[in-house]
Every structure is written in C-alpha cells, then in structure tokens.
C-alpha cells in the first residue's frame, strides 16, 4: 500500500454555528486506500464529511486535500481543492430533469472544453464503468435506488477526481445490491486509482471494502479509534468500538 498522504484532517472541531459535535479530530488518508468514517447515528460523521468537502467550514483546525486547504487558504487554493474530489450523497442527488447521460455530462460541460461527441463518449464510458450504459437515456425517477447510487458514482467520477467521497453509499439498499456497490467501489479504486472516503455504519460494507477506518463517538465528541476494521473489531479495548462491531 503506497504511503502518500492525500487527505489530512488536523485538530478539527466539527459542528454548526459554534456548537461542536466533534472536538480535536486528527487523521490522514493515504493514496489508493478505501477509508471509512464510522460511528453511530448523530455522532457527527456527515458533519465531518461536509467540512471535508467544503460545504461548511470547520469550527477549528485545518483540512487539506492533496495538499490544498479547502478553507482558510487563498481562493485559488480552495478552488483547486474542490477540483480534487467527487462526491455522492445519500439520496444520489441526481438532477431529476436530466437523463443519466446528461447528469454525467454536466460536470464535463462545465469544466472541460471537450466537444459534445467526446463528452458523450466519456459520459457513456463512465456509465459503462458502473454498469449503466444501457440506461443512459433514462431519467433518475425511472431507475432503482441502487442504480441511482451507481449513476451518482459515475457522475462523481466524470472529471477523474483523485478522491471520491461517499455519504452512506449502502443506506436503504438490499444486501445483494449493497454488495454489488461494494464491488463497484473496489473496482473504481483498482481501475481508476481513486482514493475513497466513505461515511457509513453498514458493517458488511465496512469489512468488505475499507482498508482503514476511524470511529467517532457521540458521547465523548471525539475520534476514539483508528485502524483497519478487523483490527479494531478484534483488538480494540474501547467498549464503544467493541459494541459497534459486535452490535452490542
């Protein structure tokens, strides 16, 4: 596993309007790994993710993506940081008035000068990667929840980002679809060389795809464990971590 660090989160206080949900969170993500942010409901996973993808500034601390600060730096640095990643949201957040092809084409239209034919070919290839090429002309309302998530991944990968953030990718999916999505995440990592950060509390997915993870705790408002999921399950002394992995 390469050791180059692509994301650093340093002494971050996460929260909204001066109300911290997490305090003094520090961790880093290495190139090419699938990294999971774990924790029970309300522990601040999604809040931390929103800080990492630039939606909300952290209350304190610094977040760097590929060395660029997403908050606190010059405007060009923030803009550069935003170009390093793609995101998929819990609901997929596809644009309902556009077909899947148009959804994937949108970032290509906005940020590249590729001619329309080339854009369409790139978009079709991204849909092919997630197994949805045949559904290119479908609207989001015409496809299933699992397909929406895959289409959202295709859209997030449209500009070949180095980092891919996934918010609850398996939420609301049946085990078979969820396992298919896990395979897709690994495939994206292996074929596209993308580093994946996923927020989840789905244990099967965590063990299937995550190389390393951090565990957040609502009670102490802090990061309580970091490491490969199997190690945390088998060797961690923390009661909350054991409870999470053993569903106690």
């Amino acid at each position, binding site marked *: 596993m390469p050791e180059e660090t692509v994301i650093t989160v340093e002494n971050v206080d996460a929260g909204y309007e001066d109300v911290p949900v997490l305090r003094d969170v520090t961790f880093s993500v290495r190139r090419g790994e699938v990294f999971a942010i774990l924790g029970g409901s309300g522990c601040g996973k999604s809040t931390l993710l929103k800080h990492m993808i630039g939606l909300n500034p952290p209350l304190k601390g610094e977040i760097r993506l590929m060395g660029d600060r997403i908050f606190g730096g010059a405007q060009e640095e923030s803009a550069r940081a935003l170009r390093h990643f793609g995101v998929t949201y819990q609901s997929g957040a596809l644009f309902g008035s556009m077909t899947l092809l148009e959804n994937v084409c949108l970032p290509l239209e906005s940020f590249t000068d590729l001619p329309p034919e*080339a854009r369409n070919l790139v978009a079709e*290839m991204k849909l092919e990667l997630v197994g949805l090429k045949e559904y290119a002309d479908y609207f989001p309302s015409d496809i299933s929840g699992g397909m929406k998530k895959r289409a959202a991944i295709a859209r997030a990968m449209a500009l070949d980002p180095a980092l891919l953030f996934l918010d609850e990718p398996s939420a609301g999916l049946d085990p078979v679809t969820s396992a298919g999505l896990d395979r897709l995440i690994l495939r994206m990592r292996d074929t596209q060389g993308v580093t994946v950060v996923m927020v989840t509390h789905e244990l099967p997915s965590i063990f299937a795809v995550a190389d390393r993870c951090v565990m957040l705790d609502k009670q102490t408002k802090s990061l309580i464990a970091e490491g490969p999921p199997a190690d945390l399950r088998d060797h961690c002394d923390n009661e909350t971590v054991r409870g999470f992995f053993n569903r106690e």
Partner: protein
Amino acid sequence: MPEVARLSREDSLTLDAGNIVTCDGAGEALIVELYRRSARQGFAITCRDGKGIVSRTLGLFSVDRFAEDPGQAVPIRNTHTSVQLGQAAVSIWKDICEQMAFLGELMVSAATLLARPGRLRLHDTMLHFERAGIDALPITLVIGFLLGLILAFMSTTSFRQFGVEVYVANLIAIGLFRELGPLITAIILAGRSGSAFAAEIGTMKVNEEIDALVTFGLPPVIFLALPRVIAATLVMPILSIFSIMAGLIGGAFVVTSLGVPAITYWQHVISSTTLNNILLGLLKAAVFGMLVGIVGCSHGLQTGRTADAVGRAATAAVVGSLILITIFDGVFAVLFYLLKI
C-alpha cells in the same frame, strides 16, 4: 480527428502510448474512439503500449459496446411543430380528464364529510384560511386600492368630456362589486395560494408523505385537499369585500381630487350598490375561490416525483386557475344577462 476520419483500409495508424503513465477519462475516450473508427473504417492500428495504458483501457471498455456514434446517444427531443401540437393536445386532454376525476373524488369526499363532519381537519382548514386570507390581506388591499385609482383615472378622462364625471362613482361601484373585485382577488389568490397548495402537496408527494397517508388509510383528498378547498372558498368572499372597499377608497381619492365632493361620490356609490350586486359578487368570489383550491390541490396531487415536477405543478396550478376563472367569469356574465340580474 479529421485526418483519422479520412483513413481507409489501406492505411495504418501508429498510436504511440509508450511514455504515457496515467490516463484520464478523456484519454480513455480517445483510445476507444480510435479503435472504434479503426473497426468502422478498416484501417490498422500499430500500438506502442509501454506502460500498458491502451490494453488496460481496452480491457475496461469493450470497443463493441461503443459502436454507435456518441453524438446520437443524447436523447433526441422531437421538436417538430405537428408533434408538439399533438403532444400538447394529448396533455390538455389528459389534464382535463384528471381534473374531472379529481373533482369527482372531491365531491364524493365532501359527501362523506357531510355524513361524518368530524373527519374534516378543522385545525388545518383554519390554518389555510389564515395563510390564504389574513396573510394575503395587505397585498389584496394594495392591489384593490390601485385598481380603484386606475379605474377612476381612466374613466374620469372620458366622462369629463360629457360633464358627467360624478358618475365615475357608479362605474367604480358596479364594476368592483360585480366584476373586478372578485376577479382581481381571485387572481391574487391563484398566484399566491393556488401555487402554494400545489407546491406543498407536490413536495409531500416527492417525499412519499402522500404514500404514507394512503397506507395509513387516510384519503389524501379529505386530509389535504378538502381543508384547502374549503378555506379558499370561504376566504375569497371576505378578501373580495376588502379588495372592493380598498378600490372604492382609491376611486374616491382620484374623484375628490378632481373636484367632486366626497359626499357626492359616496352617495353615488351607495345608490348604485344594490344587494343584488353585492350577492352576485360574493357568489362569484366563492366560486373562484373554490376553483383555485380545486386546481391547486389537483395539480399538487398529480405531481411527479422529481423536484422540477413540483415547479411544473405550481405553474400549472396558477395557469389552470386563471383559465378557469376567466371561463367561469364569462359563464357568469352570460348567465346573469339571461336571468336579467
């Protein structure tokens, strides 16, 4: 690419990817495009693939799967006028059918409500009454006042030529009570509350709240539509009265400033305001209110499951309400003429 397009079976193309270390989506698309053209045009490709980028790409994306021209992949929207006209006609017919079905369902629900009045959500009805009525009062008063003002200005110019500007008061009173008061208030209600009804219910549909109601065994028409329709029907006559009063004050403002004594103006207003005129105006207002409520709720319940569908439902609710208000206004005019009232 134009040079590549000219290549034929006798030609060969050298693809030198020997020094390429990484390849993004656009690069992969270029590789696939070259091999696709090679398959179509018959020219040979000699590839130097030192780092295995080309073979990796061709392994990931089978060229056969991208046989058609990607330019054709964008869904073609038929823009032919005759097709669009046909589609519009079908859409209008479908809309009429849906409105009729909704009206039928609403009537049945209202009938069941008569048998069991306790099923009406009185709290919701009052809430919509407040939102559609009390909250709309300032804009209704302002528009009503300006309408009276404009009406007085326009008619005074003509009436003065005949020296009968005092009769502007009669025109304003009859016009506002019988026609313009209910009409302008209905337009305000359609724009303000009709669209809100459609958007609220449409958003509930998108969020599957309507599905939840149905599975609870709560008919959405009784639970959501009836309180709104009843509130709109009841609130319209009251809003109309306020709008008419504001219009009369607006008229008085202009007429008195042009030299007609205020007492004369109000005497003419009172003399031309018959009980018939007031009741007909209020009847029209109630019907217009009911139409706005029905169309708004109907479009809300027929919303699709996407965010833009909510916007379309709100627009359709306003447009539909305005069309129906105009049609019914015409029907009332003919009816009152035939009945000589």
